[in-house]
């Protein structure tokens, strides 16, 4: 449930679902997100779900805070349980040329490379949100023994396709971008396809993700 609704400026609602980051709270956020999206409420022009917040922006020319707040409070979310969340397998190659931070991870986690990969590939992840850069999924949760901080100095350029971990989360760099996550491998899969007019992103909030280790050979042949 939404614990509190505030205004974020004069053209957005800030819906607060709590302060913890967990699947239960995030699933509530996603439920609201899906319901509102389906209802096509006049004036709403953007929805940004995140771990435990949902920001609803609207066109101030057409509507206002009070009107949208009323509509959200009256929303019947219980009915909107039909979700089309998917289970997606993401191939990842952990050849040394891709796992840029393996040594750092071994040191920080005090685990062998083999153990790190075993933990990572055995985990089933949940997509909390996408964004920051187009299509980038924020996936969780890694077990306690796999949690590390961001790099002290972020990279100016993280290669496209890089798969990184930080704290309880994993993410995928859909574009080359600056970034500070610990890079464990790289996926040849096009996680965000800008040429698609509809649904350019493969992974959506609420989806379940499993990473699958592939060899350098398989990586090279993947898109052929």
């Amino acid at each position, binding site marked *: 449930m939404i614990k509190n609704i505030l205004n974020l400026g004069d053209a957005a609602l800030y819906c607060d679902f709590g302060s913890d980051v967990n699947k239960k709270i995030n699933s509530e956020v996603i439920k609201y997100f899906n319901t509102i999206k389906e209802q096509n409420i006049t004036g709403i022009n953007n929805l940004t779900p995140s771990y435990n917040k949902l920001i609803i922006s609207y066109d101030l*020319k057409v509507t206002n805070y009070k009107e949208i707040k009323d509509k959200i409070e009256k929303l019947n979310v219980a009915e909107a349980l039909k979700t089309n969340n998917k289970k997606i397998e993401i191939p990842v190659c952990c050849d040394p040329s891709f796992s840029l931070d393996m040594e750092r991870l071994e040191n920080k986690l005090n685990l062998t490379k083999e153990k790190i990969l075993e933990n990572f590939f055995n985990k089933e992840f949940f997509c909390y949100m996408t964004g920051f*850069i187009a299509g980038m999924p924020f996936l969780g949760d890694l077990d306690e023994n796999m949690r590390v901080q961001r790099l002290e100095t972020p990279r100016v350029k993280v290669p496209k396709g890089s798969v990184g971990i930080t704290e309880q989360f994993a993410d995928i760099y859909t574009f080359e971008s600056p970034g500070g996550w610990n890079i464990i491998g790289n996926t040849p899969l096009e996680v965000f396809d*800008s040429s698609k007019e509809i649904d*350019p992103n493969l992974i959506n909030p609420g989806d379940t993700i499993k990473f699958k280790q592939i060899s350098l050979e398989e990586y090279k042949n993947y898109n052929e």
Partner: protein
Amino acid sequence: MSKNYFEIIRAGVNTTFQDKGRNNLYHIGIPFSGAMDNRNYLLANKLVGNKLDLPVIEFAYQGPLLKFYGDKINIVITGDVVFKIKQNDKEIDGNCYETYELKDKDEINILSTNKSVYGYLAISGKFDLKLQWGSCSINTKANIGSNDGKKLANEQIINISGINENINKKKINYQNSKIENIRVMKGTNFDYFSDEGKKDFLEKEFTVSKLSDRMGMRLEGPEIENIVNTNIKSEGLLKGVIQVPADGNPIIMLSDHGTIGGYPKIAVVASVDYDRLVQISPGSKIKFKEIELSDAETLFKLYEMETQNLLSQI
């Protein structure tokens, strides 16, 4: 029909195609983008007899030098812009908000946006552009939009796919107003900052940094003291949101902002001041003034009525 196009002799500092922007894509990480100064964008299209949502050329600081090839076309420049029109070796000073008819091999030379930042060039017709997610708007940081998401370059050709039939000369008298006091509402993390920090934010002057661009406006001034946490769990951003990272220097999110961020939100700029905010050039001083939501809503209504009134005069 002869082929109509512009040759870009000089592209300028940051020249892009922009329109009304993209809706409903924040949740996959794609920002709104669109013309930074919406009023000047709308006025440009109206003056050349276009539908109001057509793509225009947006430029910042120094604009492009363009040579027209074809039959004839009307153009208009909006903003606070210094430019020249060259026809048959004769060069004249151009006036903003007044249309000019260009004939084959005429040139338009956009020299500067004076003491503002963004200006607009519209043509009485359509640029030949491939839209992405319903909009031409170029976001150079994410390579989204027409022209492969890149800013316009020297020697490039801009094709024109259609020219309006009736092109009458049009003109309005309009002077862009400037503001120094940016009206804001308290942000969702206002109480993350010390009393001293809140006071500094609402009472002291800030300087617009050179590092400002279409993504954000960076400010330098008193360091805003945070007493709770310099990070929050990442959550959505909007244009106009003012974040304060650990270094204490506020950043105002602008049209190409990242969709998610993890710095505390001290305040949000009122929509009424957005068009004028983006026109404040680096080195200028600004101050924030707190207003209530109801005031922000009323002020925006008045601003919007003024825009509609201007459009109806054309």
